[in-house]
């Protein structure tokens, strides 16, 4: 992934996270030394497919605590009032907003469409293979590493 694209992804994600959730992201070039990517941690994954000249997807891995925090900020309610169903719904909406905003910039003529977001709780996720993927963008947050992966499925 080239630098221009990475910058665009960072700008778009920052716009969504800051405007909607008051969460600030710090882009990372590599995993911080104090972060153990071999130790499994609880995450929520949200993914949405896009259909352009080629079909692809964007998948965001949210640390569970960050996902709780985002949902709480989004709804303006205490974290204790939020259940997993609501968290998954909010993360699905988040990935939808990220990809929708990105397409708005990359596809001004509206040729691409988005699928319906899907989400899953991953109680124990090992980050190693994901951070090693060259199509992964890393972000530091106050609640741990947030990972965004872009994948292509097939040509038209």
């Amino acid at each position, binding site marked *: 992934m080239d630098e221009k694209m990475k910058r665009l992804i960072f700008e778009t994600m920052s*716009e*969504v996270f800051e*405007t*909607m959730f008051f969460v600030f992201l710090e882009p990372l070039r590599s995993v911080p030394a104090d972060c153990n990517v071999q130790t499994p941690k609880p995450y929520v994954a949200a993914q949405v497919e896009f259909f352009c000249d080629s079909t692809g997807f964007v998948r965001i891995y949210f640390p569970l605590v960050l996902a709780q925090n985002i*949902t709480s900020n*989004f*709804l*303006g309610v205490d974290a204790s009032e939020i259940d997993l169903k*609501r968290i998954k*719904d*909010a993360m*699905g*909406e988040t990935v*939808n*907003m990220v*990809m*929708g*905003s990105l*397409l*708005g910039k990359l*596809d*001004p*003529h*509206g*040729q691409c*469409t*988005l699928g*319906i977001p899907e989400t899953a709780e991953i109680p124990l996720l090992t980050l190693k293979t994901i951070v090693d993927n060259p199509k992964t963008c890393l972000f530091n947050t106050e609640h741990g590493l947030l990972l965004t992966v872009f994948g292509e499925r097939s040509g038209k």
Partner: protein
Amino acid sequence: MAFTILVADDSETMRAVVKKTVEMSGIPIAAFFQAANGQEALKILENEWVDVILSDINMPVMSGVEMLRALKNDKVLGQIPVIFITTESSQARIDETTKLGSAGYVKKPFLPETIKKVLMDVLEKAYEQRVLELTPVSSGPGSDEMDF
């Protein structure tokens, strides 16, 4: 005067956020209906009149655009203003919904003030339209009518 509002979005969270945003805007609300897709919204409209619909575009079962087309095919329901609140932010998509007769467009992510402004503009226009429709046409000075 209080308004009835219908929100159509497949995300329960987004419906709650929109509801809260509208409540906080100070716009008086008489009733707030919620639908998870266009089909559910049309079902609600079989029994309820609403002043405005705030709708997502990308929804399962029936999209917001399909719902708008269905509304425009109905003489009465076609008068209800539809504001899209959506991630689909290309100018081409905005132009397409405007052509179909949408009343407004709010891109996600949004600021609460943006929803408030678009909603107030649309409700004001709808209110003026309703007043015009209810005002009897009277003959003013200079009218050709004879006064017996």
